[in-house]
């Protein structure tokens, strides 16, 4: 097994630079905040907090919103101006949506730059990409629900994009609109496409956390207060407002751009709908492929991989569960012991550790966790490690 890695390519050097920048930023923020308050350690938790705020404020808005072409705009106006604190809740919903996307993007870049997306971490990466996609789509449908001129123009542009998709575009557009054109059923469908994917986000979060042993799903209290504070403050100081009401005769040609949700529509200034759809699909597919095509080193470069799936030495296992608690990949489960172990310490065990091969990444953490020498990496045993170290520290022969 070779211990020398190939020199990093241009991508590898770029990622190493970004890793250094990320770690320097960590160090800088740790000088301002105590490490357990560092927000960069809780980008995922912060996104989750924004999502929670979105759900609660969304439920409030749902009570007053009416999904009908003639009434939707007026119902949003009623919420904003006549319902006590309705305008604040609308603003909180709007700014929390932006915060949700910002949080996800920070989380994505941080995990990308620190290599926390490789090997068995592809699962949270892929689910995270879907969370980002769905989050963006939900935000877009949210802007449509207001049914002002911007919503009308967005709907027209989205329909043009749908219709540009070969074969399925036209039927998709009909399903989205509830007919050949914008009609009384359209807003009900858009509301459905706002709420159902939003609920689905929690299923995706379950998928996101599935293989993580200790996910930080919630930020510290200080950041909960700060985030709630900032969305309330923004909602009060810069209220979320509607444009002119949408009318069949209106022909709006421009609208205020929200960079987090409307970038594809901005591209329509220069590109045809078909090209924008194509680019969006390519970008998403590239995002999904990142864990598999953007490794700085190949498995062969790393040398230490292919250690073999961890194996439990039955006779030594005491059922103490230390490996079970330490494995970050949920790759070890405890089962009732079929009989006593061979060693003295294992004689009275009631549980036995079992390695789930499909989840094991051969990292060796369980071996460090086990004080009873009851686990091993079959192709990377202790004596081999010692031999490597001995060889490495040998003085070079002149």
């Amino acid at each position, binding site marked *: 097994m070779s211990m020398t890695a190939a020199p990093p390519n241009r991508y590898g050097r770029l990622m190493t630079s970004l890793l250094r920048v990320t770690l320097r930023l960590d160090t800088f923020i740790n000088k301002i*905040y*105590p*490490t*357990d*308050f560092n927000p960069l350690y809780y980008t995922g938790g912060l996104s989750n907090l924004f999502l929670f705020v979105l759900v609660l404020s969304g439920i409030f808005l749902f009570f007053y919103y009416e999904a009908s072409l003639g009434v939707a705009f007026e119902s949003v106006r009623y919420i904003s101006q006549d319902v*006590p*604190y*309705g*305008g*604040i809740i609308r*603003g909180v919903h709007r700014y929390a949506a932006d915060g949700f996307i910002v949080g996800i993007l920070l989380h994505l870049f941080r995990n990308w730059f620190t290599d926390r997306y490789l090997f068995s971490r592809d699962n949270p990466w892929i689910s995270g990409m879907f969370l980002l996609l769905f989050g963006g789509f939900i935000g877009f449908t949210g802007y449509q629900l207001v049914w002002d001129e911007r919503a009308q123009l967005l709907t027209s542009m989205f329909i043009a994009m749908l219709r540009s998709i070969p074969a399925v575009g036209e039927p998709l557009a009909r399903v989205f609109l509830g007919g050949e054109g914008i009609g009384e059923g359209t807003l009900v469908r858009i509301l459905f496409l706002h709420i159902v994917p939003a609920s689905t986000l929690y299923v995706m979060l379950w998928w996101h956390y599935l293989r993580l042993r200790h996910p930080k799903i919630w930020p*510290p*209290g*200080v*950041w909960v*207060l*700060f985030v*709630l*504070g*900032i*969305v*309330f*403050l*923004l*909602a*009060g*100081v810069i*209220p979320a407002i509607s444009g002119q009401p949408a009318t069949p005769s209106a022909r709006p040609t421009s609208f205020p751009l929200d960079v987090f949700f409307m970038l594809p529509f901005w591209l329509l200034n220069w590109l045809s709908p078909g090209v924008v759809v194509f680019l969006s699909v390519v970008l998403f597919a590239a995002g999904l492929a990142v864990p598999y095509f953007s490794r700085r080193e190949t498995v062969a470069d790393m040398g230490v991989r292919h250690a073999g799936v961890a194996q439990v030495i039955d006779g030594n296992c005491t059922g103490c569960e230390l490996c079970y608690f330490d494995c970050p990949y949920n790759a070890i489960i405890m089962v009732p012991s079929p009989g006593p172990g061979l060693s003295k310490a294992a004689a009275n065990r009631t549980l036995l550790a079992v390695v789930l091969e499909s989840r094991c990444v051969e990292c060796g953490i369980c071996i460090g966790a086990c004080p009873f020498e009851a686990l091993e990496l079959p192709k990377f045993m202790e004596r081999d490690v010692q031999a490597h170290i001995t060889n490495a520290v040998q003085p070079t022969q002149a």
Partner: protein
Amino acid sequence: MHALYGMGIVVLSGLGLLFAAGIIIGEATDQWFLGGALIGALLITYSFIILLLRKMGMIGPRKAER
């Protein structure tokens, strides 16, 4: 440094009191946007108070991070 943090907490507490009074005024006069903004300002103030308390060592760190 502790004295400075302590001073910061006193100032922030005073600000918090002002914001709380503003919330009441906003509610009494039906200025909901003012009230909502001040709720936000109050929460942000609380978050900074907690940060300063933490820096003074009077709260935390959490058990798992000691």
